[in-house]
């Protein structure tokens, strides 16, 4: 009778200790698309088509200026927003990975016009996955960033207009 009690208590104790070991191996790290890209220096970043950017993006025209003026101003504003990970003057597309990541398409028309959208519009599901704490801001708080996108586009256009019409004014670069 006593030995049975001892046996059962040993069994319970061993089960408890085993259950402690079981939890660690089951957890696997899930990486979001943005974290994976950041770790690989944005190699393999998918660039959306111009037509898709036009569909998803906000538009602003810049009268009385040239394509080159707006393009150069857009670079200056975008490098202050984040890291430019794609740029092609021929296609008119550039991507700036900031908070939130922005993609821009510039149309060669009678007056230059810019279509601007959040990159999240083109990578929706993968970005919701868990992200490690030490990752940059653009990779964290993705759900919050989705709400910020429209606001970020409006701010970008405001800065771009200032940069286009005041030429070399880097008004945001003060410490």
């Amino acid at each position, binding site marked *: 009778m006593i030995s049975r009690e001892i046996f059962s208590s040993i069994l319970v104790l061993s089960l408890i200790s085993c259950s402690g070991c079981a939890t660690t191996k089951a957890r696997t790290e899930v990486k979001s698309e943005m974290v994976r890209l950041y770790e690989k*220096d944005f190699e393999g970043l998918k660039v959306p088509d111009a037509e898709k950017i036009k569909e998803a993006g906000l538009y602003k025209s810049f009268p009385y200026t040239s394509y080159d003026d707006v*393009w150069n101003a857009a670079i200056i504003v975008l490098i*202050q927003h984040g*890291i430019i990970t*794609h740029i092609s003057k021929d296609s008119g597309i550039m991507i700036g990975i900031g908070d939130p990541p922005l993609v821009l398409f510039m149309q060669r028309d009678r007056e230059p016009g810019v279509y601007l959208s959040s990159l999240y519009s083109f990578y929706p599901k993968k970005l919701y996955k868990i992200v490690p704490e030490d990752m940059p801001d653009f990779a964290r708080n993705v759900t919050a960033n989705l709400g910020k996108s429209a606001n970020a586009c409006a701010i970008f256009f405001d800065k771009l207009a200032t940069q286009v019409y005041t030429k070399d004014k880097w008004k945001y*670069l*003060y*410490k």
Partner: protein
Amino acid sequence: MNITKKYIHLFIFCIFCSALSGCATVPSVARPLEIQHTYSASFDKTWDAVLEAARASQGKIVVEDKASGLIVYSVLDKGSKAKIYMQVLIKPSVADKGSNLVYIFPHDPKGYCSGSIQDEFFKDLKKILES
């Protein structure tokens, strides 16, 4: 009696002065960041020099578009070991024809980072252009 009164007045005056000096603060003046330098070299030569500076710092080229004048490369900061993206923009100078403006705008995971990294870059670039 008069002498003690004088001393008391002097003492009060000293306290008043020291209290006032505590209020005086040096105003902090916003000053532009040292993000641009002008080099009297051709666009092609400046472009090649920036690429060489990137290679010399063991950087990995992320983006290069000569038509836009932009080179982006990543380097590891020696001190913090953080990955820094160096964004270098080369533009022909309007004021000084034949010269080129070089802007640098480094980003680390927390956003814009300033400090010695820009100074080191401009020093290296100058060395390469003069050699």
